[in-house]
């Protein structure tokens, strides 16, 4: 494109919308807030989600839970990998958004996006391995066998990290859904645009609607009703400061949500499996055998 044509052509702005139940609604409240780059330049008006948006997202996530948790691990892995494919194709867009959001050079922002895509691939490969790593057969002292299997805990609220708008986001969302949970994600308050764009990627990646729901707005305002919500099973407090984290953890006790407290994380490093196991339950199923192993058999 020549300089001349750039002067003549007015670019098309994007209206950023929430991603809830596989659809792209505006906030029910009709509110938006101004998102700027690191230098204060206007980037977009992001939806400012309300308590009602949060509740709608939980309904969508609950509805999606049965199908998603019931899908085979192989199938979930395929779909997660498909998300990585779609992300790769939108690499430049995300690099631009991350550069704007975090004030990074183009090269550094691109490196963040690459790391995020690789992270997503890493988690895609975990879906059909985590049960073998953390589950197993237990050698019971008696004529029984029993098997311990990990299962997703349910609907997980995720407060995405505030500073790392994309790599941090991917690092907390992928493990939640890799294990079969569904998620209500609150994007970074100051830099929500990469998260809202992630919604567009997810919508075109075979991921069933409602498995991931992305809300933008004031973290504390959206998180409060989610931490108290009786149909939310767990909460990842990565994006909460100490004061908010404590408040939310207290609210979460009402129905004994599983709580992952905020902790210092180097998102550039390869993660361990803690974010996978934090949202898993262990189910142990017993059955009589009538005998013990091969004892008494002739060969």
């Amino acid at each position, binding site marked *: 494109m020549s300089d001349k044509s750039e002067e003549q052509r007015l670019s098309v702005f994007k209206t950023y919308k929430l991603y809830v139940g596989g659809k792209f609604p505006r906030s029910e409240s009709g509110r938006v807030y101004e998102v700027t780059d690191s230098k204060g330049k206007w980037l977009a008006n992001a939806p400012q989600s309300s308590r009602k948006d949060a509740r709608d997202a939980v309904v969508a996530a609950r509805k999606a839970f049965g199908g998603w948790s019931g899908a085979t691990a192989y199938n979930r892995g395929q779909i997660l990998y498909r998300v990585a494919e779609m992300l790769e194709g939108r690499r430049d867009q995300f690099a631009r958004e991350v550069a704007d959001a975090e004030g990074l050079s183009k090269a550094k922002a691109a490196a963040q996006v690459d790391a995020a895509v690789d992270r997503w691939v890493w988690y895609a490969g975990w879906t059909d391995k985590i049960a073998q790593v953390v589950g197993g057969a237990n050698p019971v002292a008696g004529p029984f066998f029993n098997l311990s299997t990990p299962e997703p805990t349910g609907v997980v609220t995720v407060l995405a990290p505030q500073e790392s708008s994309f790599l941090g986001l991917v690092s907390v969302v992928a493990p939640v859904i890799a294990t079969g949970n569904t998620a209500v994600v609150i994007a970074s308050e100051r830099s929500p645009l990469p998260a809202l764009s992630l919604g567009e990627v997810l919508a075109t990646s075979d991921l069933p609607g409602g498995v991931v729901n992305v809300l933008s707005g004031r973290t504390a305002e959206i998180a409060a009703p989610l931490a108290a919500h009786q149909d939310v099973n767990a909460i990842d407090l990565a994006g909460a400061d100490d004061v908010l984290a404590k408040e939310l953890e207290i609210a979460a006790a009402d129905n004994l949500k599983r709580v992952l407290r905020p902790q210092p994380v180097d998102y550039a490093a390869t993660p361990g499996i803690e974010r996978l196991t934090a949202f898993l339950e262990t189910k142990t199923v*017993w059955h009589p055998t009538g005998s013990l192993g091969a004892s008494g058999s002739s060969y």
Partner: protein
Amino acid sequence: MASAFEYAPAPESRAVVDIAPSYGLFIDGEFTEAADGKVFKTVSPSTEEVLSEVARAGAEDVDRGVKAARRAFEKWSALPGSERAKYLFRIARIIQERSRELAVLETLDNGKPIKETRDADLPLVAAHFFYYAGWADKLDHAGFGANPRPLGVAGQVIPWNFPLLMLAWKIAPALATGNTVVLKPAETTPLSALFFADICRQAGLPKGVVNILPGYGDAGAALVEHPDVNKVAFTGSTAVGKAIARQVAGTDKKVTLELGGKGANIVFDDAPIDQAVEGIVTGIFFNQGQVCCAGSRLLVQESIQDELLDALKRRLSTLRLGDPLDKNTDIGAINSAEQLARITSLVEQGAAEGAERWSPACELPSSGYWFAPTLFTNVTQAHTIARDEIFGPVLSVLTFRTPDEAVAKANNSQYGLSAGIWTEKGSRILAVAGKLRAGVIWSNTFNKFDPTSPFGGYKESGFGREGGRHGLEAYLDV
């Protein structure tokens, strides 16, 4: 029902256990009085006889206990795992040696039948120490990375339904991983924990590694809140579990909670009826139903309801209620007057809400706390007795027609600890087990426990697992 044979009593001798008239708190390897000199009496629920007077821990004592545990932590956690293992193996062996004494003691203080303490509690207690002893020098291989570190001081609060077993579930993994502990037994059943203190002495366990602080809820709360406690482990009611979850919010304390349950025991029409009846009885009348994973909601397929209930009632008529020290006794005493009152009130509410109450002809002893095995039919999901944990020998019977309905009803609970499935069809077991939201599922059996097997709940039955490799995680910095 009149029995064809009358059994002569077969009482277990009390002579094997020597209960002192008073006990202190066990802090830093010594028995000591409470700072404020307070004491409480522990009674035998089957006779209301006062067994002993026990020092009652307060906040100041909790602080002393935590300080002792903190002092001991440095050396204990630095010991090679193989040395910690040997201490735990010693403890396991001493428990085996003294198991008859401990079984009688537990029955006296708790009220449960000697048959259960002798054949279930004590073997499992020893097995837990034996199992976790073997982990102490193999933690690199437990799946939590190389050289996983202990957390520090563990504050542990345990209930009265399995006093010594719950102690074993808490202390064995804590010590194996290199933590030191302050444990508060329940106020109605402090004695076996104090005898355990003596076992620690016999085993030569370093001072301060295990501290036992008998007391009430205030001592438990002080322990949970203590700023120098790194790990909180609690087994008990969901209400207290929620309070603990709030208390530790915003701290670095790691928490595991084993809370209430309202287990569904699902019987399909192709189930082996006689085995199912035995499983139902074990599910709800084991330990007088004072079991968090009890199968307190029986879900019967409608087509076999009459047949199953007839068989069940016939079986209940053969249960023997009475002196817990009698080796023939199936149903012992309820643990306390308070618990008896709670059971009585919920049962009255069940009748008032329209469920149909049935008990076998059953004579209750004139002293002590007793409740006859009780069955409720015509129960709906809205009834209090189908929703609230009764924690007593009370079974609520509901029906279903299809597997989907069974699953929906079983999952219709705030709790998710245990469930049972009775069917001859393997694919049905696996399909239903997969859909049930519960941490422990027994198919064609019930109330089985083993130290190698993780135990713990979904939903409001708490979080974390005890037992097995999974049980180590709660005491490691991972």
